[in-house]
Structure formats: structure tokens, C-alpha cells
């Protein structure tokens, strides 16, 4: 059981980190939407506009793959990983 508890603790830790990043790019930055839009972002778009078109969306894609990879490592560490590939 101790092993399970440790595994769950790490899993929860990863959840909080992932959700923190998610909250920043889905909500946090838009608190300052007007100010940020004065800045020129990637490819020359206004920064807030860029985040709504591409930036936040792309970050979510990367974030989910990163999360999946980290979670797999945690599962392997405790021997909870499934056999076979996907």
C-alpha cells in the first residue's frame, strides 16, 4: 500500500504542475490581455491576438504530450506501467 500511496502522491504532484501551467495559459495571461496586446509577439502578430490564435492552443498540445510522458515515467518507476505498446 505504501507503494501505491507514493505513486499517487507523485501523480498528484504532476497534476498540480500541469494544471498550474494550464491555468496560466488558458486564463492567467488574459487578465492582462489589453496590456499584452501592445507588445509584438511571434511572427509579428500582436501578442494577445497571437495567444488566442495559436500560442495557447499549441501550448496545450505540447503540455498534454509532456504530461503523458511524465506520467508514464512515474508509472514505470513504481512498476505500474502496462505492457505492450499503443
Amino acid at each position, binding site marked *: 500500500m505504501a507503494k501505491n500511496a507514493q505513486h499517487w502522491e507523485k501523480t498528484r504532484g504532476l497534476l498540480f504542475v500541469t494544471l498550474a501551467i494550464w491555468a496560466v495559459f488558458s*486564463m492567467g495571461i488574459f487578465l492582462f490581455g489589453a496590456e499584452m496586446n501592445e507588445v509584438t509577439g511571434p*511572427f509579428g502578430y500582436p501578442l494577445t491576438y497571437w495567444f488566442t490564435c495559436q500560442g495557447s492552443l*499549441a501550448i496545450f*498540445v505540447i503540455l498534454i504530450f509532456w504530461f503523458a510522458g511524465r506520467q*508514464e515515467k512515474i508509472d514505470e518507476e513504481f512498476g*505500474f506501467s502496462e505492457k505492450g505498446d*499503443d
Partner: protein
Amino acid sequence: MIKGNFIDNLPKVYGIYTGGFIGFIVLMAIGESMGMTAKAIGICFVGFTIFIYALIGWLSRTAQASNYYVAGRTVPTVFNGMATAADWMSGASFVAMAGGIYFKGYGYMALLVGWTGGYVLVATLLAPYLRKFGCYTVPDFVGTRYGGNTARLMAVIVLTVASFTYVTAQINATGTIAAVALDIPFQYAVYVGLVSILLCSMLGGMRGVTWTQVAQYIVLIIAYLLPVFWISNNIGAGFFPHFMLADEVARIGELEQQFGFVKNSAADLATVPKGLAGITKAHSEVNATPWAFISLALAMMMGTASLPHVMMRFFTTPSVKAARKSVGWSVFFIFLLYSSAPMLATLSKLALIDPNLPTGIIGKSIAEVQAIDWYQNWNQANLMFVSDFNGNGTVELNEFFMGGKAVVLATPEIAGLPYVISGLVAAGGLAAAMSTADGLILAIANAISHDVYYKMVDPKAETAKRLVVARVLLVVIGFAGATIAAMEIQGILGSVIWAFDFAMSGLFWPLVLGVWWKRANKEGAIAGMVLGLVSGFAYLVWVRSGGSGFLGITQLTFGIFGSTVSLVAMVVVSLMTSAPSAATQKMVDDSRVPAGASVIGGQK
């Protein structure tokens, strides 16, 4: 053909399919240059793609429960990602999203953020754990985790309310496109659309829907991206629009400054046909308060994580690990379309308003604009309108009106693309609407056949009988949806957003706390679902009937209120009643370990 090594051959099968579809487009282009009429091309595109989907549906027929409900749990991550993306992107995403961005700008783009960000919640909070549970449907999870038929039935009710709100809009969109492409009245086209939808799902259930959705994704993404790239090249905006439109965005800002946003009088606006709008908001400026943006994004994200037709797609992967990765692929495939919609809006707007471009109509004389071929076509289709309010004889920015759908449907023609592209776009819109409708109808029918009929009414029913019931329900629910769609009572996007709010009001916390809070019990879950759904619905009715609302929560974000009530009710009632049994707690523990047999056991 669809057994055993079919899975290994997937890349090859869909590679050939994609090549074949591109070949078909080329064939149509040749046909057009040889004098094929626009109508014939439209019929070929719609007829050919529906035939292919029906063929896939027939090849995927099955008599096994696990194939029917969860595609035998054999769908590889990348393909499940494509199927989820098609399941997800509705007729509204395809036809109306670019238009929404075109007219409303920043405030509307909260939907782009919300409809992708929600998948982070799906991947982290729910999908892997529900997959480990091994359920067939979302109410199956609720019923097993909390125990008892009441919780199960409540989950079925929330699912049905949310999904049914959504599905009528999809059948409506299918009917609209079929009506235009096949040139038949809308009331009949709705049923043509319905029959096509049922052909995909009836014989093969989830398996049929999975493989048609992959095919539909390929059609819809080609149909969306090809015109965007082509238009961008045609008007000289850059060969890769996503990275190269900064100048165009800046130019639109300049023109907005130059023209100014003149407010029309109510009397003038009354002469504009219903459903059309003018450009009244800055293209790339922040035009909404932080809370308006964030609350809409949040509602859409929590709604995403609560919609059963999306969640059940992750029940079809071979493993928990694959379920997680598959969520990543889903958002990637969604991202391809969503990141293109703002580019299409930019190209469309610039082409129309820039006097330096040959297609620009602002500043031209009214008579000149009214003589343009494409203006006449789209004016006749009730999607475009100019009027000389100030009587100076030229078209001003505030004197030009367009329907939201026109951004996707008309821009190819305005930018001078051949008609074959319009046929392709019709096929893409149809694929988007059909794939979502299929997923939704299946979600409702499966919940009723598995959770109500099999789990409550007749637990001893044999597989053959269960599958007959499932198929009959599929047809009944489809016809109910089509009948309501034929009445045309709701706009496409309004009802789509409500579905998210209903789902999050009733299901978000019971699902999340079911995994993450062991103390959550049956009484709490029932209270959460009932009070969440009822309070969300009450808030919607209140705001719709002229209520002022509070905290800036509108009829588009009422789920924030409903889900908060749901959370409070669930926690309070859970703590006031006894903790769940040791067996239930062990079940939750088991769901947290990816390895090993599914928690439910038995049903694979």
C-alpha cells in the same frame, strides 16, 4: 477485411483513402474545366463521400457487445485522435467559427482557447482513470463508482439533456448542406442527412463510428486547409498564412482607423436581412473584459471535460497509457483546424475591405458592387447585403453586411478559386456535422440501452437482444433529433454552447470527484447532479426571460453557476452522509493504478 491485421494496416488503408480522395478532387477539377456544372459537382462531392462513409459503416458491422460499445478497445492513439477531432469539430466549428472570429474578434476567440484547453482537463483529471475503470459509457462509470440505479439514471438524464441539445444543431447543419448541394427542400434534406448518419453507426456501433470518423476527419481537414492556403497565395498574402499574416492583420487595423466604426441607426438596421451583420469590432484588438473572456473560456473547458460523447472516445484505446497520449493527438488534430480559422477570417476580411485589392468593395460605388457576380450569388443566398444608408453612392464599412457562414462558404469564390473548391467545402462541412451527430446519437442510445435497459430493466438480456435494443434506440433518437431540427427553432451556435453548460452543470464534479475524492459518495453525487442541472437550467431561464444575472455570468456561461452549486451540494451532502463502502474505496484505489485488469472486470 476489418479483422485482425486491419489494425496493423491502418496507415496503409487510410493512406490509400486519402490519395483516392485527392484523386477525386482532381477528377472534379478536370470535370469543371470540361464544362461540368456547379450543381453536378456539388452532388458528386456529397454523394461520393456519403457513399464511402456508408461503405465503411457496413464493413464495420458487428455482433459483439465490446465492438459495438467501445470498438473492441483496439483503436491506436493517432487514429483515435483523428476520430476524436472529427467527433469534436461540429458543423458549427467548420462553418460558423471563422465567421464568429470575423465579426466578434477577441471576445469570440475565448472559444478557441476553451475548446482546446478543456482537453488538458480531460487528459489529467478523467480520461485515464475512466479508461481503467473499463466502463462502456459515462453513466456506467457513475453507476459503478457511486452504486445504485438512481445515480446511474441521473447521469443518463444529464447526458441526454446535454447531448440532445447539441445533436439537433448537427442534424440541422447536415440538412442545410444536403439541401443546398442536392437542391431539395430543407424538410426532406434533414431526413436524408439523418439516414446518412445512421448508415455509419447502426451496424457497427462505436466501431463503425470510429472508422467513419477517421475518414470524415481526413475530408474535413483537407476541405478546410486547402482553401485557406490557396486564398492566401491568390491574394498575395503569403504561402504559409499562419506565419505570414502579421502585415495583413496590421493593415486591417489601419483600414479600421481610416474608415472608423460608424454606428447605424435602428431604422437603417431594420432594413438589413435577418441574420446578417456588419463589421463593428476591431479585428485584433482586445474588445472584451478579462472576466468576459476568462469566464467563457472556463465554461467551455469544464464543459469539454464533461461531454460524454468525447469522453467515450477514450474508452476505445488499448490501454490507459494510450488513452493519455490519444488526448494529445486529439488536440493536435483539432489545433490544425482551429489555428486556421482566424487566418481565414483575416484573409476574408482583408479581401473584402481593402480598396487596394481587386476584390475589395469598400469605397466602390453601390451599383458597381451590385453588378459583381459573386455578390449577386451570395446576396441571393441571403448571405450578403449592401445598402447606401448615407446616400453618397459608395459602399462604406458600415454599409456592408454578411452572414457568419459566408466567411467559409463565400471567400473561396471571392478570391477567385474554382467551383470545385466550393464543392469540397460542402463535403467538409457535411463530414464535420455528420461525425459529431454520429458520436452524439451513439452516446445517447448507448447510455439508454446499456445503462437503463441492460443494467436496470433486464440484466439477463442476451447480447443479441441488447444490440437490437441499442439499434432501435439509435433510430428512434435520430428521428426525434431530426424532427426537432426540421422545426428550426434554435440557431446553430447557441444550442452548441448550451450543451457545454448543461454538461458541466450536472456532470463535471461527479466525474472529477469520483476519481479524485474517495470520500465522495452516492448521496453527494446525486445531489450534485440534480442540483447542478436544475440550478443551471433555472439560471438560463431567468437570464433568458430578462433577468439581470450576477457576476457577469451570461446565458452562454450559466454552467459556471450550475457547476458551483453542484460542487457545494456534492461536498456538503457527502460529508453529511456516511463514507462509501470499503469495496468502493478499493475500486477507486484500483483505478489509480494503470497496470492490471479493468476495475469493472467482465466486460473487457
